[in-house]
């Protein structure tokens, strides 16, 4: 009975494991094995060359060039693209109008395919008839017009920027979700605390001054009641000890926020680096074409 039960359990995962092993795991392991052979992919005979292929690649200037390009694009993605994504998430993480519209638009480039994005931008950046050069000429900056994608001076940066255009939506959504997990009450509390210590000028909650401190807290949700209560209590106390409590709390909440940001940055990196490996694949694509021609 128990054996039958276990077999039945395995039946559930059998299709997934079979397909996955056949089309994912086996080719993946096979890469390492094939790397040690000289083989044209068709003939039945393979010649063992040990680490010879690796040596050849490591001495190949074109390969190093491709590695540099992939590394450069990744660097731009991790710095410029992430900074932009974070700034946008920060800007959208507040009570502003059209918040949902912005969110809708910023994730539009990521849902489009690489082919569509690539060809649409290629047309805009075209050296002869592209819109960008047309605008530059009209603005009297004809000297800046160039063939953006084939001029060695600009090609890599142009590709990196288009890549960022397509990719920043991922970071934006993930950072926004990360920021939204930080309870608002904590953040406003941090600001208030730091305000009394002079960390920030008194510009975040102007309404407070008008309404009086305590009434400003009526928006606290139930689960933060303890925090709110303590704070109200704090506020009635004398200035010195109040400031003392502030130092501790400010440190704690700053850490809390920093920790949250690190978490979403880590997850984002995880997504993004995976994506970048994918983007640096044109080389492999050429390999596939090459293989077909043989």
């Amino acid at each position, binding site marked *: 009975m128990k054996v039958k039960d276990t077999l039945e359990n395995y039946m559930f995962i059998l299709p997934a494991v079979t397909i996955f092993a056949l089309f994912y795991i086996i080719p993946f392991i096979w890469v390492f094995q094939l790397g040690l052979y000289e083989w044209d992919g068709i003939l039945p005979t393979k010649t063992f060359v040990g680490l010879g292929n690796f040596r050849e690649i490591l001495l190949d200037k074109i390969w190093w060039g491709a590695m540099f390009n992939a590394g450069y694009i990744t660097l731009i993605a991790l710095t410029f693209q992430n900074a932009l994504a974070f700034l946008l998430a920060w800007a959208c993480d507040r009570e502003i109008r059209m918040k949902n519209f912005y969110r809708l638009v910023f*994730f539009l480039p990521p849902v489009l395919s690489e082919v569509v994005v690539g060809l649409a931008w290629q047309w805009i950046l075209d050296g002869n008839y592209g819109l960008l050069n047309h605008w530059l000429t009209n603005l009297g900056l004809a000297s800046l017009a160039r063939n953006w994608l084939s001029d060695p001076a600009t090609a890599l940066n142009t590709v990196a920027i288009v890549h960022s255009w397509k990719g920043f939506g991922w970071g934006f959504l993930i950072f926004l979700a990360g920021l939204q997990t930080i309870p608002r009450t904590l953040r406003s509390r941090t600001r208030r605390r730091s305000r009394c210590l002079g960390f920030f000028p008194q510009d975040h909650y102007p309404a407070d001054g008008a309404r009086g401190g305590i009434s400003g807290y009526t928006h606290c949700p139930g689960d933060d009641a303890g925090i709110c209560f303590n704070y109200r209590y704090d506020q009635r106390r004398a200035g010195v000890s109040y400031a003392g409590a502030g130092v501790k709390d400010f440190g704690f909440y700053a850490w809390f926020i920093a920790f949250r940001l690190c978490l979403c940055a880590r997850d984002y990196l995880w997504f993004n680096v995976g994506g970048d490996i994918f983007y640096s694949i044109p080389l492999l694509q050429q390999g596939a074409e090459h293989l077909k021609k043989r």
Partner: protein
Amino acid sequence: MRTIAYYKSKKIVLNIIIHLFLVAVTITCLFPLFWMISSSLKTQQTIFKDMSLIPKELHFENYILAWKEGGFGRYSLNSIFYATAVVIGIIIIASLAAYAFSRFKFPGRNFLFFMFMAAMMIPIPGSFVPLYVLLNKLHLRNTALGYILCMVSVGLSTSIFLLKTFFDKLPRELEDAARIDGCSKFGIWWHVALPLAKPVLAVVVVFNALNVWNEYVLALVVFDNKNLMPLQRALMMFQGEFLTDYPLLMAGLTITALPIIIVYLLMQKYIVKGVTSGALFG
């Protein structure tokens, strides 16, 4: 003494700066798409001279030409077929596996689950050369089945992860009730677990459908036969054939991108959920 008016005006100025920034990025996001559509409505004679965003005469015949002469009708049908087949395959296979990983105990459970999760880090193009050889040996290269099976294996990891996380949170009482009534394990999976998983299945469907529709590199490896190619692969070939005919190319791009944009606008909720639920473990 700073007055309330001072703070209010400061807040307004800050809001204006934020909106300017957001609107600038919005325009940058949308403009290439507008330009693509606008270019598709021009003719080969006017496209190099007429740089206006809205052309004076709208030439919709490019779409008819791309659809009929360019074969985009057939490629669209191919893409729809692949997306449907892959999504159905993934839903059945991934939900079976995720249900087992979540509910049953059997030897090797953790190891197998870890294997699926580890694969989320490794992109499939890394092993394209052996995959090509393997498909050749199995006589699956240049066949729809080969492409569909490869795409199912690409989508499995993430789908299993999403579904297992969902099943883990699902209370077991309903399944217990079904078991007492004499329902088999497969019966419980089909009649109880799957219907309850509808919200997360929607995420899986939308994500995988987008993924298959947008896939290009694997299609490049698998297909030589024009009649079997999906849209993205055909588009690159189209670019080679009609290199100078930009309006036709832009019409092809629009035909390819439009369904995705519509699906995205309708299913936005599920897409956002998919992106963030996979990303925020913390």
